């Protein structure tokens, strides 16, 4: 028989206001095995924990039940306390009488009754608890960063600087992400390339960083400290070890009609191309969909042009397998497609553009060489209308419900830069709210209004229509309570941003969470913002939620710190609550193997002694280092052979019985 102590926490008034804690403490003494009970204002405080420790020592407790908040909050606290005075930590159970009881009930009688039942269930479980010992597993001292935007670059640099190896896997031919496409950056208006390219170069030059560009992670197996990733390096059809990045081939290539992704399709590139001048790594890449050699078998000009003999039309995709201790997701975002926003005429009218397109137009390396010219007739626009919240904060199927967070600031930036360079241009900004929290952000926006005379109009734009070479913009000025009509030369849409389309696939591959908008979910929105709920998987940058560069970089460094903390350990403690199959009951049916999301189950042939009958049987065997204790196999097993330590079928049934008693 166990000697169990039951401790009821008031949680100030959080629990005590709805649950009669004294009654629960008294009721506990009637439960089998319970030799002691107590209640206290804050059980998690040092003195509360002291109460538990003293009772363990003085009453010789073999099991502890704490009736308090969710085990997510303080299970670890009380287990540590128990361990410090010699009790196996897995002999401690939490009955959640706060989230599951006091917070959702108003009536004290009802709340107390339920608290007693929850206490009873936990006591019933502890009566069957057994001491468990956590195993250890080695940590591979290398990190994988998926995505090479500013988030991935910063995370990788910080990890590398701490002395650990990092691989960046970037799906595009170059790292840099969206920031490489920006012209100037708020709130300081420094040139994006000037602050980004040194970091790109640092990453490439760092002896601890390896960049797999034009590559994707195909699969990941394993667990925290010991992941194995398969990386597919797509064929560039150019040998990286020979290409010098001279770009001669790109000049000679006769196929020049492919929309240039880097310039948002506003000009074209050749079939063999280098994304932009500061690309890292700077190797040419052949786009087989555009290359004449791939289409017709002829041409071959680039191969002949290249002095370095780097072109290789027969190059194949390569798959590389590497081991990692930690993985950081930094897959960033894209601007949403605007096909479904007919009211703005984006698809019909070349002079209705997105803000990202405007970044390219304003950039010296962009399609117009940095001159502000509208796409249709390459004339200088005299009147420009910006429309905010396009696709953000809406509830139609084409809308995103969230605020994209960065557009208020970048529009203020665009408006200001235009007024600075072309004071003859009239600039209107239609807004619903102007959201500029952030250091020096409000001041930045007010400068656009007060110093640069940008006209901010409170209201949305309902329609943009072609009208005699101009764009007739129908907007509302809510402060006047009137509709207003502006004949503009250029309309710029602050389109919503959304996670990269690969986010869902990545989340599934890493068995980590994703929200309804496909942003990866952090383990705790306030207290664990850069960790995912899956151990060893971390989040960096916009893949977790909309962010500007300052925020992205802070989060990237925070994720790096978490990775470094993990890689600094030689071994990590495993979860001892793992599955185990009873070799006498297992009939080797493979049901469990099929449901295990972590691939922890294999089958072995083993000689068993079944009541004196010795025979070799095929039985399930769980790799304890890989098993995450999800319990899927225990449910799938038709013969009841699979059991989860710490959550055995017997324990769960005892809890159910106690509740139904």
């Amino acid at each position, binding site marked *: 028989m166990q000697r169990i102590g039951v401790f009821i926490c008031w949680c100030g008034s959080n629990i005590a206001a709805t649950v009669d804690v004294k009654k629960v403490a008294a009721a506990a003494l009637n439960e089998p095995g319970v030799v002691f009970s107590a209640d206290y204002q804050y059980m998690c405080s040092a003195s509360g924990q002291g109460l538990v420790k003293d009772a363990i020592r003085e009453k010789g407790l073999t099991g502890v039940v704490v009736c308090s908040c969710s085990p997510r909050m303080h299970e670890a606290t009380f287990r540590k306390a128990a361990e410090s005075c010699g009790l196996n930590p897995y002999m401690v159970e939490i009955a959640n009488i706060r989230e599951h009881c006091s917070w959702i009930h108003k009536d004290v009688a009802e709340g107390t009754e339920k608290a007693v039942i929850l206490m009873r269930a936990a006591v019933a479980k502890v009566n069957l608890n057994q001491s468990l010992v956590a195993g250890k597993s080695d940590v591979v001292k290398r990190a994988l960063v998926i995505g090479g935007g500013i988030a991935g670059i910063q995370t990788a640099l910080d990890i590398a600087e701490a002395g650990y190896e990092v691989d960046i896997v970037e799906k595009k031919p170059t790292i840099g992400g969206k920031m490489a496409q920006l012209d100037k950056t708020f709130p300081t208006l420094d040139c994006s390339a000037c602050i980004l390219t040194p970091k790109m170069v640092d990453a490439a030059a760092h002896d601890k960083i390896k960049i797999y560009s034009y590559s994707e992670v195909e699969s990941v197996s394993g667990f925290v400290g010991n992941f194995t990733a398969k990386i597919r390096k797509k064929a560039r059809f150019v040998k990286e070890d020979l290409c010098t990045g001279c770009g001669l081939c790109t000049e000679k290539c006769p196929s020049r009609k492919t929309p240039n992704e880097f310039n948002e399709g506003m000009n074209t590139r050749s079939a063999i191309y280098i994304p932009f001048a500061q690309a890292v790594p700077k190797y040419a890449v052949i786009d087989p969909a555009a290359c004449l050699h791939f289409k017709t078998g002829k041409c071959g000009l680039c191969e002949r042009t290249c002095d370095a003999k780097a072109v290789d039309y027969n190059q194949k995709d390569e798959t590389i397998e590497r081991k990692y201790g930690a993985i950081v997701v930094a897959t960033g975002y894209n601007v949403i497609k605007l096909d479904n926003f007919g009211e703005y005429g984006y698809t019909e009218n070349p002079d209705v553009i997105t803000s990202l397109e405007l970044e390219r137009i304003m950039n010296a390396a962009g399609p117009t060489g940095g001159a502000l010219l509208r796409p249709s007739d390459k004339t200088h626009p005299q009147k420009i209308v910006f429309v905010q919240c396009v696709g953000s904060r809406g509830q139609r199927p084409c809308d995103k419900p969230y605020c994209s967070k960065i557009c208020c600031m970048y529009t203020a930036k665009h408006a200001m830069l235009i007024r600075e360079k072309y004071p003859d241009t009239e600039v209107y900004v239609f807004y619903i709210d102007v959201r500029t929290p952030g250091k020096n952000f409000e001041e930045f926006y007010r400068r656009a*209004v*007060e110093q640069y*005379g940008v*006209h901010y109009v*409170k209201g949305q734009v309902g329609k943009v229509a072609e009208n005699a070479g101009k764009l007739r913009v129908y907007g509302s*000025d809510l*402060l*006047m309570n009137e509709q207003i009509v502006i004949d503009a030369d250029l309309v710029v849409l602050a389109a919503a941003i959304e996670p990269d389309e690969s986010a869902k696939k990545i989340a599934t591959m890493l068995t980590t969470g994703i929200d309804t908008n496909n942003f990866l979910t952090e383990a705790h929105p306030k207290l664990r913002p850069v960790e995912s709920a899956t151990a060893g998987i971390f989040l960096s940058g916009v893949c977790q939620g909309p962010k500007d560069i300052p925020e992205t970089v802070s989060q990237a460094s925070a994720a790096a710190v978490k990775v470094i903390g993990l890689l600094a350990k030689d071994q990590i403690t495993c979860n001892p609550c793992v599955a185990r199959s009873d070799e006498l009951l297992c009939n080797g049916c493979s049901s469990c193997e099929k449901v295990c999301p972590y691939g922890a189950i294999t089958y072995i042939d083993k000689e068993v002694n079944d009541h004196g009958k010795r025979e070799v049987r095929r039985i399930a065997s769980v790799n304890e280092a890989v098993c995450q204790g999800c319990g899927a196999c225990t449910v799938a097993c038709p013969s009841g052979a699979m059991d989860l330590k710490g959550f055995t079928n017997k324990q769960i049934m005892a809890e159910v019985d106690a509740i139904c008693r």
Partner: protein
Amino acid sequence: MDLSEQAENIKRISGVDTKKCLRCGKCTASCPNYEDMEYHPHQFVYFIENGYLDRLLKSDAAFRCMTCFACVERCPRDVKPAKLIEAVRLTLVRQKDSNRLKPYDIIENLNADLPQQAIVSAMRKYTK
């Protein structure tokens, strides 16, 4: 002077920079004569900035302002709406033959309870 020149002139003589306004409405919230005014302090600021001065000139709202300076006192951006209203008033009274109070009308409006100060201020407000 056309309307936009007039608006510029109002800003110049009042010294008010309408672009500083945040559109918070605190001036109007503070105005003790709200009920009596067709347009309110924040509207003076907005109208003048955005080309709707004609509406202010057609209204008697400027003359309903009591020049109590509550809006000036409370505006978080130091816009000073009352100064702008005063400039609108000046613009109106400087228009020829637009006097609203003639000296010989005062006699019949005199009232024993009316402080002399009010008469003087009414003269200032309603005549050149």
